């Protein structure tokens, strides 16, 4: 922490803690304690009357006290969820970052920059639920002659067969990811645009004068300079994608092979009433996120040293 903001007025030793106390109490009650409790519950059986090993059936594979993790890591439905989350991460992160960067670079060259950016950013304001309704309508599949969904109307107008976007395996997960890209590209665009404005215009002009074309300027000068920002955006997006729940819940309910980890956790807890398995899934989620957490703390500490 910076030296210049360290305490500059004498105070009783207890005073800072009086200011911190309300925040600490609330955070310990709602984040820290429940976090540890979830870990404990993940090792317990269904009604918390004994360890998870009591759930094991004779003659079946058993992971002892980690029995809930056996379900969370090896059951077919969870493996579908992991695979889908992987698809989400690969497609949504690359989609939002590439489109965000593209729009940031292009918008910088036009006079209606602010308007274009507002339009792209607008979906960030609305809920996943609202976006789910908007896109469910886009994807509407009419079995009769009339297609009221834009995508199928275009396809049939071009002479193709309408597609049932949300129930067709393989297609449907991609269709859901498109909704995520639509919502989050604005975020990536704004962060990357801010970084691009920081790239020295003199260097850009100098390389142009030296005969570099726009493509080379972009890859050789701009991208290397904003690489740290790109890394931050990517890690942020990975965390966001891992927690995706609402889009899947609203649009398919996890059916037709579109299951993801966060939705599975909700279903285990509030549909199947199985806190043990639900907790195990939550713990897996946090384990995946912990490296990013440590990275964030490290980055924060570096920033503080520079202040």
């Amino acid at each position, binding site marked *: *922490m910076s030296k210049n*903001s360290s*305490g*500059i*007025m004498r105070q009783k030793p207890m005073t800072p*803690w009086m*200011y*911190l106390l*309300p925040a600490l109490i*609330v*955070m310990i009650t*709602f*984040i820290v304690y429940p976090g540890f409790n*979830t870990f404990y*519950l993940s090792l317990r059986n269904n009604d918390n009357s004994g360890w998870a090993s009591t759930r094991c059936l004779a003659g079946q594979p058993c992971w002892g006290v980690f029995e809930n993790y056996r379900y969370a890591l090896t059951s077919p439905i969870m493996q579908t969820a992991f695979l889908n989350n992987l698809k989400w991460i690969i497609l949504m992160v690359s989609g939002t970052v590439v489109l965000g960067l593209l729009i940031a670079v*292009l918008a*910088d*060259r*036009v006079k209606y920059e602010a308007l*274009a950016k*507002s*339009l792209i950013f*607008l*979906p*960030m*304001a609305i*809920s*996943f*639920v*609202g976006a789910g*309704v908007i896109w469910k*309508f886009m994807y509407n599949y009419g079995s009769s002659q*009339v*297609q*009221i969904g834009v995508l199928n109307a275009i396809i049939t107008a071009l002479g193709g067969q309408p597609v049932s976007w949300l129930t067709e395996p393989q297609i449907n997960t991609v269709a859901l990811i498109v909704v995520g890209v*639509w919502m989050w*590209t604005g*975020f990536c665009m*704004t*962060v990357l645009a801010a970084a691009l404005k920081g790239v020295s*215009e003199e260097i850009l002009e100098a390389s142009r004068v030296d005969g570099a074309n726009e493509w080379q300027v972009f890859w050789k000068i701009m991208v290397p300079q904003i690489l740290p920002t790109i890394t931050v955006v990517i890690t942020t997006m990975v965390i*966001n994608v891992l*927690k995706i729940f*609402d889009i899947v*819940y*609203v649009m398919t309910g996890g059916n037709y092979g579109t299951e993801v980890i*966060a939705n599975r956790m*909700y279903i285990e*807890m*509030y549909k199947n009433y199985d*806190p043990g398995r639900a*907790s195990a*899934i*939550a*713990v897996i989620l*946090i384990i995946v996120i912990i490296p990013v957490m*440590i990275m*964030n703390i490290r980055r*924060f*500490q570096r920033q503080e040293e520079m202040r």
Partner: protein
Amino acid sequence: MSVHRTARKHGLRNLPVHIILIGLCAIWLIPTIGLLITSFRPVQDINSSGWWTIFSKPKGYEEYQTYCSVCHGDDGSAIPEADLSDPDLVQNYRRSFSLLPSLSREIDGQPHMADSSVPDETQTAAIISYMRRISGLDSSSRLTLDNYIDAFTGYRGNNTYRADCASGKQSVDLYCDIRDLLNPRGMGRAFMNSLFVAVPSTVLPILIASFAAYAFSWMDFKGRQWLFALLVGLQVVPLQMTLIPVSRLYAQLGMNGTFLGIWLFHTGFGLPYAIYLIRNFMGGLPREIFESAYIDGASHWTAFWKLCMPLSIPALASLTIFQFLWIWNDLLVALVFLGGQHPVLTYQIGNMVTSLGAGWHLLTAAAFISMALPMLLFLLLQKYFVRGMLAGSVKG
């Protein structure tokens, strides 16, 4: 902005740039526009034609132009003895089989249709629907507010709320007056619930966080560094990690389904980011102001309220918008801790999509009701809005 950058914006030499950018903007905008237009269309229209047809001529216009307008005129009144804009005349032709014979008949020894052929049944039906429109028999508008009225009042019948109330055939749970806005099934009630959840869940964490951020910025105490580093780590803890223990705790305390429960939960999860953000701002305020205040004998309490808070308003504004929208748009926490006891907007819409199978006319209106406030905030307070969203983008 540098001179070069401004200069580069002029001129049309970057035509491909304009095409790609405008194309992307259009793709981004079309889904929302489709929803907005659909929410204003009558239910029959929504299911029989795409929303983009709103920009084309009404049904039967083409056929009428081809077969009838030469003699009867564009508005149908060119021939006084066969005035197609007269409802009493059009009244007699309800179906294509009642109009077709008259089209094939001879008038004054000449075929009705003169040189052109007689339209087929489908075309005749379209012509009838166009005649009903120009004669005023069919006065149904192509745009309506009924979807919004039905969504707000929670109307679920086969007609519209207005029609049912006018004929006195409304269902038993509707009063047909202002009380219907509080119908538990309606979006009016859900809007109120969303506000009632979001306002305290925004004010409470920001107030508590401001105190903590002040301590982190302007006080010295042991463990300050590592406590703040811990806070940075807490920001990315997913909600899912704490839902189960907290809902068990609430079950024991009888707090499931209460507003207090959801306020406290949102406060807990809003704090790490709020403290981080406010502290970064407060810590950057000029040290001299505080020094002179302390020398003048100001206590921490006074410095906090009179100096620190007013100066931090830009950060507080960004945070307020972000936290408010985060809660307004949240589904998971509302689903778990409030459920159907106090349905909020997202919960109601989620229900309509997944289980109730409400029609598009209700769904589009309901979705737009939930989006109106965030969009308004975005348009009015764009600067604070964007700043807040960027700061809090990985919360919970």
